[in-house]
């Protein structure tokens, strides 16, 4: 499974984030470095590329604690995702559902699955073909942020739209 590194959408922040990653999870942004994708900045992403999707569209949405509702900010992101995915139809899509650590393992697998399904359903409602979409739950087994407080938990309660097929 191709895992797309998480990036902030703000190009100015990219260099900063790379540095902050060293300092653990102090950053409110996701702590993956731009170099992971060989980028020098958002502007370098070719339209229609996986980098373009991750950097300019935003590959992930976040959830409230123990909730699977798509928040208003997430709806904006998913609408943008759907528009992009409808434009670049060469990609197959896997939606990963994740939970924070503040739940038990099996329940969180189920919760992550429900988040992935809710995200998938939203994309389908926005016109993305269901046949392109798969879901997988990682429960709380794949946190991106690793501190023991709310600033990290809120980043881990997420659904990540990952691209496979032609683009990656």
């Amino acid at each position, binding site marked *: 499974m191709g895992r797309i590194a998480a990036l902030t959408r703000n190009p100015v922040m990219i260099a900063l984030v790379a540095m902050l990653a060293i300092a653990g999870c102090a950053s409110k942004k996701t702590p993956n470095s731009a170099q992971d994708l060989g980028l020098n900045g958002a502007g370098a992403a070719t339209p229609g590329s996986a980098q373009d999707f991750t950097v300019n569209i935003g590959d992930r949405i976040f959830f409230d604690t123990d909730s699977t509702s798509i928040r208003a900010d997430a709806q904006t992101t998913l609408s943008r995702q759907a528009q992009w995915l409808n434009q670049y139809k060469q990609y197959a899509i896997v939606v990963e559902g994740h939970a924070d650590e503040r739940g038990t393992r*099996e329940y969180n697998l189920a919760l992550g699955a429900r988040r992935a399904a809710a995200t998938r359903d939203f994309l389908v409602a926005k016109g993305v073909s269901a046949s392109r979409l798969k879901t997988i739950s990682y429960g709380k087994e794949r946190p991106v942020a690793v501190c023991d407080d709310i600033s990290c938990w809120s980043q881990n309660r997420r659904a990540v739209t990952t691209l496979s097929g032609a683009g990656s």
Partner: protein
Amino acid sequence: MKSILKPLLMVAAMAMGMTAAGTLPALALVELNVNKGNVEPLPIAITDFQGGDALGAQISQIVTADLKRSGLFAPIDKSAFIEKITNPDAAPRFDDWKVINAQALVTGSVSKEADGRIRAQYRLWDTFAGQQMAGEQFFANDANQRRVAHIIADAIYERLTGEKGYFDTRVVFIDESGAKNARKKRLAIMDQDGANVRYLSDGRSIVLTPRFSPNRQEITYMSYESGQPRVYLLQIETGQRELVGNFPGMTFAPRFSPDGQKVIMSLLRDDGNSNIFAMDLRSRSTTRLTNSTAIDTSPSYSPDGSKVVFTSDRGGRAQIYVMGADGSGQTRISFGDGVYSTPVWSPRGDLIAFTKQTGGEFQIGVMKTDGSGERILSSGFQQEGPTWAPNGRVLMFFRDSAGGPKLVSVDLTGRNEQSIPTANFASDPAWSPLLE
């Protein structure tokens, strides 16, 4: 598992030279009432087993550690011993043991048989009654030295408490290493005291929630190896693996039925909810037990196989429910202030252990099977996933602290908490049944 141990009951036969014992008045022998609220640990002297060089001392050390960790025994430091046991088959000088307040005394010997096997025998003495309480001998091959000691500890525990022991058992768990956001998770098995660790998977795929079959020879667990997370069966000795069922979506949270014929688990529905299914391992037929637009997971059978306890958030947040093994009569039993999950039915049938989240804490507790009598045994920032010792008196679970999870046990009083030594981080322990 090969049957390498042949216990020989020697209680009467080994009482040679003990004619005095038969003439003693019928004294009440020392015993521990483990059902009393506050058990004072029983002072016990465990002498080095004679013979076998270092092995004799090692057996004594393992027996001592087992009994001590149970919280029910207070082994007396060897430096306090007055009598030096030279003949473990002869009656000890009881006064020498009474004066150091050893209420029970263990003597024993170990020797190599001509065929290479080890012969270990022990005697348990009641020092105040001046009587032998028990004596047995066991044979084992070299590779099972530690098991002999655990079996002897179980025999002593059972004789003194009236309850089955749990020391000759193993634990399957998830060995975790590496950074938190890139944890390598491996299936592993070890003795209940942390010895003899063996890895059962290579760590390339995430594996979770292993559970023993009733005959201890198989494990059911969940793995991401095919991409989609699914439930598998593993034969421990042969390493043979197979997928359980051929379902379209994720299967997870597996457990065996008490007769070992079925695996019960959650299956993800297309709408994102999870329902509980049981699969017959012989006929491969599946039975749907729940059909709700909610998360139904973590099923666990009652020991008689007639009921299933599970987690569901059908009422809003996760709570514990009980139903018949056919899915009938689904009834919520947890009503406390908080979120409940990971219910596990006690092998004695009397209690359900659970994880409860409340007030920013994770608690391990037990309740009666109707949900009454809730008792919290352990609280912490992040801990979950209890598993029962086969005698239903001790729980093991995992607690996250200092960067990762470690295994912890607690007894039903909640007073005796012990950490289980593991080389790496460890989670999802599942205790084996006793080997019959």
